[in-house]
């Protein structure tokens, strides 16, 4: 029986991190302080609260009416995939401190990584050569991204900014092309839509669509009640999903500028999020040590990936090319590999000497890359 909980918070003071610290504070459904409201305002607040409860119940009831079955039942006849044993094929050495993020280029050969040694490195994963080593103004980097074109990379972190670098500048030097500044909290994640648009998520609880050329915000996506930690763009580039410290994932329509759906169920912060390859489902990874699969068209959670022996939070995740495998990086230095349909663990990648902070599968599906606080990246297949 799958219950999808809609968790809503009502707070007098915003609980989003705007002091630049990496604190992920939030509070669970506190009653609103009515000390400064007039009587009629108190009345309206009470009406709003009642309507919120009614709507939450309506949504839960509607989701139950779609629940004619479960994925578990539907996949009962499917055989679990055989044990998946991947080997480390390459180790990318060069960072001098914890790696916080990595992102594959679309050519499945180059990737970019970000470390708190204050560098962005673009790697040729086949030769292990460093194509670019870009020094950053702020070493407190938390995310990086590769543009689909291969022309640009971006990064950001505790400087609250998203910096865009042009890899293909005329004189061969990699320079800052634009600094996107407006967030009032740390930059947790960024993903390019194209060379002219990028989406960011922030500790200020919002996500933003930027015009890179003008350096301005095109759209602010507000709604999360906790730090937005991670985002993913749909395969058709029309939607993006965000996971946050309010324990929910949200689906956003980029051009209509609205939140379409909200998914709850996790019992702690969502640190990682990604689309299933066909764009119809979303996978989340949380500090509650589980991953969850939500179907967008059925508007609910289909499966939870959990095991009593896994007690450490999920830091990162990536689906394999067919979607059948889910790779999840944890605080306990390992990556767990799940059969996504059967919710059974079918493999482990053990090779790092510290937390796995980031993971990505190349677009041709040939390899998985992990990045760790041990300062190394590893390529597995």
């Amino acid at each position, binding site marked *: 029986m799958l219950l999808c909980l809609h968790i809503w918070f009502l*707070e007098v003071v915003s609980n989003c991190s705007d002091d630049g610290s990496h604190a992920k504070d939030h509070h669970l459904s506190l009653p609103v302080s009515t000390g400064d409201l007039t009587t009629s305002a108190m009345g309206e607040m009470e009406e709003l609260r009642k309507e919120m409860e009614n709507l939450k119940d309506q949504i839960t009831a509607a989701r139950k009416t779609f629940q004619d079955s479960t994925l578990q039942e539907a996949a009962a006849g499917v055989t679990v995939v055989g044990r998946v044993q991947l080997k480390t094929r390459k180790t990318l050495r060069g960072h001098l401190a914890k790696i916080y993020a990595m992102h594959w280029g679309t050519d499945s050969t180059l990737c970019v990584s970000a470390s708190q040694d204050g560098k962005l490195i673009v790697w040729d994963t086949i030769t292990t050569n460093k194509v670019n080593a870009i020094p950053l103004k702020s070493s407190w980097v938390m995310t990086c991204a590769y543009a689909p074109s291969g022309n640009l990379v971006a990064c950001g972190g505790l400087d609250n900014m998203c910096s865009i670098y042009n890899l293909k500048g005329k004189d061969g030097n990699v320079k800052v092309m634009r600094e996107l500044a407006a967030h009032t909290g740390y930059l947790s994640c960024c993903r390019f839509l194209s060379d002219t648009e990028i989406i960011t998520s922030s500790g200020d609880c919002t996500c933003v669509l930027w015009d890179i050329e003008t350096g301005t915000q095109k759209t602010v996506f507000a709604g999360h009640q906790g730090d937005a930690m991670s985002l993913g763009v749909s395969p058709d580039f029309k939607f993006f999903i965000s996971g946050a410290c309010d324990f929910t994932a949200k689906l956003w329509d980029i051009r209509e500028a609205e939140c379409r759906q909200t998914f709850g169920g996790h019992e702690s912060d969502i640190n990682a999020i990604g689309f299933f390859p066909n764009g119809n489902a979303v996978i989340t990874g949380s500090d509650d040590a589980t991953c969850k699969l939500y179907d967008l068209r059925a508007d609910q959670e289909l499966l939870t990936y959990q095991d009593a022996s896994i007690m450490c939070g999920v830091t990162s995740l990536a689906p394999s090319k067919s979607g*059948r495998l889910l790779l999840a990086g944890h605080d306990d230095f390992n990556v767990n590999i799940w059969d996504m349909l059967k919710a059974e663990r079918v493999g482990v990648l053990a090779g790092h000497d510290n937390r796995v902070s980031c993971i990505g599968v190349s677009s041709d599906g040939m390899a998985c890359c992990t990045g760790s606080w041990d300062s190394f990246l590893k390529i597995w297949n």
Partner: protein
Amino acid sequence: MSSKMQSSSSMAQARLMVQQLRMEARFEGIKVSKASSDLMRYCGEHAKNEPLLMGIPTSENPFKDKKPCTVL
């Protein structure tokens, strides 16, 4: 921010949340059985092209160092 401003901003926030919930309550979904079978079909159709599942022959693995052959 004064406490009065906080209160009126929390009222505005509450109104926005109700508006959002109203929109989400209008969502028309499909049955889980259909969603599940579509996911399973996608996995099935793409499994044979899935390198991490099917394995990669050494000659086709760009990440595997190919040992040179010596003719004895």
